[in-house]
């Protein structure tokens, strides 16, 4: 170990070392260049000096295992790894964008901005969790922003890959993480729960919304453990301007029991993007911390708010999908609407963590966009929302599990597809209307959605009897369904 000296001008496996970007206790980050790879590149080299923290080496090896297995826009692209026998290093894309630290001088931020930043981070976390990784060190300095606005998570030295050995598990007497952001279960040594990242994001949003950190910056284990029984000051007490919906979301992320947070980061992102649809519970109204006696009881008695056991990382997402149902509200559609509802009920029955977004597309002709659309259009949207609620009524879903959206677009299929992409929808359910001359000429919405959707699509179709089909009469009522994986 050790090998050639790493410094400006040195060449390691074809990578020419440039400027030192960041010097840390655990690792140094160098700008590097290589004829075979598109710049800018970054080389991470662990500090391996005599007496160095063994955690630094274990953590670096963990990152060397995890980073090459990740892909997508929300992580830095992996380029190369150096053999430990010669010179350990990791080369990755240097993400062209600043970290969330840039916002610190402007704190507190407006609620809408906190929610927007929070949503981009939640989307990145969802992407990571689907790749079987819990980050476990989410904080402003570890979240960068691409020019396009996507959040990029960096530094996987404390992360846990659900399908690889966890080198960090039970290695050290103290839990590793960043004190202000660490989830309570992480303090207790649990490293498998993706909802730990939601907690850290909750701390970040609390900090951004109020300018204060909810649990301070404790330096000892006893101080870290305080968050298991001491609830934070409600954000609205610190910032009266903080809207109830944002407090609701932040405090839910900060629940001590992971099971009381959002089932998935995608669902958290969904809430942050639809503030008007956030179900306000007692969390949103809190103006003070729990009473002394409540806190004492919590501290000295085992209670149900303690974190339970975590499940598999990607399993969480599978059990709590976001299901979007496109509902045609036209008069001619009742049997189909009924079949759709039955199908949605089946899915909800087997997936208690699922949430449903009921969608309707208000088809606006491109040429009919005129000035009096404002009032008339608004009324149409409100009327459709009422009808969507009416459609969902028999499903008997508690508030917070269902939301209603009217999309306005001249192209229904494009609108549905965009919605599915933007909101990390896992499953689109929509009806196929009976064959008609018009559909044959224009192509069907369901066909287009099925062909281009980023997720599973179920097209619910009413079974047509042969005789009815031959005569061109309308369909009968039994449902027939096909699903596109």
């Amino acid at each position, binding site marked *: *170990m050790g090998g050639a000296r790493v410094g400006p001008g040195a060449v390691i496996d074809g990578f020419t070392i440039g400027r030192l970007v960041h010097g840390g206790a655990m690792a140094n980050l160098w700008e590097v260049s290589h004829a075979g790879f598109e710049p800018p590149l970054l080389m991470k080299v662990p500090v391996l000096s005599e007496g160095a923290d063994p955690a630094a080496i274990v953590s670096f*090896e963990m990152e060397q295992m995890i980073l090459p297995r990740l892909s997508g826009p929300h992580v830095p692209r992996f380029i190369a790894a150096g053999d430990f026998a010669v010179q350990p290093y990791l080369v990755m894309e240097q993400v062209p964008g600043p970290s969330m630290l840039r916002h610190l001088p402007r704190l507190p931020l407006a609620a809408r901005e906190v929610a927007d930043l929070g949503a981009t981070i939640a989307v990145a976390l969802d992407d990571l969790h689907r790749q079987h990784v819990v980050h476990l060190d989410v904080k402003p300095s570890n979240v960068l922003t691409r020019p396009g606005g996507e959040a990029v998570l960096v530094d996987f030295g404390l992360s846990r890959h659900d399908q*690889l*050995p*966890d080198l960090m598990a039970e*290695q050290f007497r103290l839990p590793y993480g960043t004190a202000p952001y660490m989830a309570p279960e992480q303090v207790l040594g649990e490293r498998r729960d993706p909802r730990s990242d939601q907690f850290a994001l909750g701390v970040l949003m609390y900090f951004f919304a109020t300018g204060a950190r909810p649990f301070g910056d404790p330096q000892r284990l006893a101080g870290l453990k305080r968050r298991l029984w001491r609830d934070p000051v409600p954000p609205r007490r610190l910032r009266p301007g903080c809207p109830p919906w944002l407090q609701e979301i932040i405090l839910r992320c900060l629940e001590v029991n992971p099971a009381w947070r959002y089932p998935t980061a995608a669902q958290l992102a969904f809430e942050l993007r639809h503030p008007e649809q956030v179900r306000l519970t007692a969390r949103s109204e809190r103006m003070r911390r729990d009473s002394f006696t409540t806190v004492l009881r919590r501290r000295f008695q085992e209670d149900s708010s303690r974190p339970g056991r975590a499940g598999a990382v990607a399993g969480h997402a599978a059990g709590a999908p976001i299901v979007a149902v496109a509902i045609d509200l036209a008069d001619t559609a009742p049997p189909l609407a009924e079949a759709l509802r039955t199908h949605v009920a089946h899915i909800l029955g087997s997936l208690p963590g699922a949430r449903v977004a009921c969608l309707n597309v208000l088809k606006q002709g491109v040429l009919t966009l005129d000035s009096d659309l404002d009032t008339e259009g608004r009324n149409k949207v409100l009327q459709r929302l009422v009808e969507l609620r009416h459609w969902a009524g028999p499903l008997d879903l508690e508030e917070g599990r269902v939301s209603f959206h009217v999309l306005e677009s001249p192209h229904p299929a494009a609108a549905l597809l965009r919605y599915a992409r933007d909101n990390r929808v896992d499953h689109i359910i929509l009806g196929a209307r009976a064959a008609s001359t018009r559909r044959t000429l224009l192509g069907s919405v369901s066909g287009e959605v099925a062909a281009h959707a980023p997720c599973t699509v179920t097209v619910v179709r009413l079974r047509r009897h042969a005789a009815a089909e031959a005569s061109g009469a309308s369909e009968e009522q039994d449902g027939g369904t096909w699903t596109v994986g």
Partner: protein
Amino acid sequence: MRIALLADIHGNREAFEACLQDARRRGCGQVVLLGDYVGYGADPAWTVEKVMELVGEGALAVLGNHDNAVGDWKEDLTPDAEVAITWTRGQLGAPARRFLAALPMGIEDGERLYVHANVAPARRWSYLDGLDPALRALKACRAQAVFCGHVHVPALYGITASGKGIAFRPVPGVPIPLPRHRRWLAVLGAVGQPRDGGTAASYALLDADLAELTYYRVPYDVQAASAKIRAAGLPDALAERLGKGR
């Protein structure tokens, strides 16, 4: 080079053939057989013949406790295994018995050590079925990576930079990096009699160039293998457990 690691075949022809075919399809260039070719299953003669053929083509093979019991009547086995080995002795001809008797306890291949049960050269067949025995075994040898079977439940153990041990249950089909500067002990699942609740045959492929180990599960014709065990008049429990993976 990709090395196929197969342990605990136990006379299960259907499972053995399925794993060999899967390994060939995945570009395996070397076969390593980690012992217990006979016992329990109904095709010991065919299995040993196949092992001899593979060894003739360059495969490596070590001795298992059931293989040893064929010639060593003092070997201590469970009652069902005892019945099966008695029947097996009547199935194997002299060349097969001579072949089994000549197998080594372990084979060192560079920095890798292949054994059936444990690293000790004595024929004691103790189980590496947890982190503590696995770490003791790693301390007792110099190999960078040890590969064994015998437990019938896949597992991976390692020693990290801080000297602590880690235990891991491999996920089928997911390559696990085994960095060369750390030490590893990989317990293979069983080809012919899985006991981890899965009925599919278990084996692994080591990519020696990438230093990555991937455990695989291969479905095979369990009904046929069970039916043969019953037809041979072997204990019914041996047929039944193939269908349960226990």
